């Protein structure tokens, strides 16, 4: 799996490409923006072709590390395959999920601003 990281208005955008499983999950878990409890991260899942329980685990653990548990990690562009895995495990309730990365960034920035105020 490859992770490309960009930033917009202070929000880190991680675009994942490939398979998020037991092998690649540590790479995501150890990402600098993911580890930082203060940093809000938007995870773009459009190019994720497979996710397993370890992959979900990595995303859930990352959100647990954040200061704002429901707003620290925002998910975007989930394809149907990934969405179904989130739904079947009921993990979708733990996240805000957007179909557009820019909308997710706007939301995250608003949340971050209101949390900081």
């Amino acid at each position, binding site marked *: 799996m490859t992770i490309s990281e960009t930033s917009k208005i202070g929000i880190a955008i991680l675009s994942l490409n490939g398979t998020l499983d037991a092998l690649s999950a540590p790479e995501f878990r150890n990402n600098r923006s993911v580890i930082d409890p203060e940093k809000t991260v938007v995870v773009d899942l459009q190019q994720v072709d497979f996710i397993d*329980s370890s992959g979900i685990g990595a995303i859930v653990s990352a959100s647990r590390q954040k200061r704002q548990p429901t707003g620290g990690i925002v998910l975007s562009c989930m394809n149907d395959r990934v969405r179904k895995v989130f739904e*079947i*495990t*009921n993990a979708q309730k733990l996240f*805000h*999920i*957007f179909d*557009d990365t820019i909308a997710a960034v706007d939301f995250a920035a608003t949340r971050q601003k209101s949390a900081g105020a």
Partner: protein
Amino acid sequence: MKTILAFREEEYAWVHETFPCVHPLLLPLCNKPFIEFLIDFAILAGSSGVRILCDGGLDALEQYCEDGSRWGIDLSYASIHPDDSIHTMLGKNRKFCGEERVMIVSGFNFIRYDKRLDYKNLATSRPTGEWAACPGGRITLTGVPAKTALDWTLAELSLMPLDSMASFYRASMEALETGATRYVLPGYGDEPGCAFGRNVVISKSVEIRKPVSIGNNVQLLANTIIGPSAIIGSNVIIDRQSSVESSIVFDNTYIGEHLKVDGRIASGNRLNDPKSGASIAMEDPHLLSGIKKKWDIRSLPRKIVHAVAALGLIAVFFIPFIILWPLLKLGGHWKSTRADFLSERTDATLPLGKVEVDSSSAQAAIAIALSLDRYLWLFRVLTGQLALIGSSPLLAEKTRPDLLLGALTYRPGVFSYAEAEDWPATGGDATIVERFHLAHSNPLSDISLVIKAFINRLQEKSAI
């Protein structure tokens, strides 16, 4: 024009309790799933795309509706949070909405519309804001309206909240009585007020009193009286000399001989009174019962593999168990308590002995490391009561995990999938792991997960 249909689990929680065999969004109103009324309305309003948002599971709904091609629209699905406002919902679905006008139908409500009226022009020309509302939800329009002067009163809408069995009954009867003039309803019939599905077997002596709606694969046996105002679902048998009047019979239900069902909702072996909300379960299957589906043979290979593996574990750990168990028992380090646990079957509990081993002695530490506290549970795998690996058994007083229709959410096992994974930190996270594997594992991957669970327990106990 795009339409968003937004639902929250709490709005239809009563359906889960009253009619657990059906996904609330597929609840049949006059033999037509609830969601289809909303899709029909979205199409009448000129929508080319419909997105269904929900904070609960949509798997069963998705299996039924698929991508919407049967209605000629693009149907998609997404998740929301229970506290999301309309503004947040629009933000979360920005790509879907684009620059088009959006109609948001929120809440678990029955929309009273008339298929003969022109909602398309109305939806595009009405000013932004609320179109119709009721205590349980609303229809809202966003985006710039087209500049057409229309008389909006010509096609006013009203909403009926489906918040109880009584309102569901009212809405069903209303749909039946207004019939195919207002809504697109399933079935064929020569005259208004009578709709029949496919493969309906009607004995010569059966009396049909309009209005009625009868589903597919129904048998009406001799001297039965159906109607007036009877809605009979699919795969239903009404036995001899019974009558069904002002009542709803759900799919897969058997109504016994010489019975009079009047003003009731029959679902499986449950008879519900829509007025009082009272519900009774019939114990006698000759009176009222569910028509069960055949046993699912797909679970057989898993049961066989689990049983063979359990047999192997029983043989391997027999000698350590037979040596350590009496020693620990006599030393007071082995404490066993019996409790009732939730079984995989929804109508049964499973009595199990739960062992607690005091790990202060070396023998106890070995017993725990070898998972001998679960040894006796392995015999339950041979009888099919437990899986070798599955969900952590839940005490019977706990509520059963939410049933995601079409998906298994609970299968108690000797070892749990969460024990095989490293990441779960809390009970809630363990459920995520268990649900993932219940949906995705196969008998062979189960064996490798058992080994992982066993090693994890071994390491965990060694660390202690």
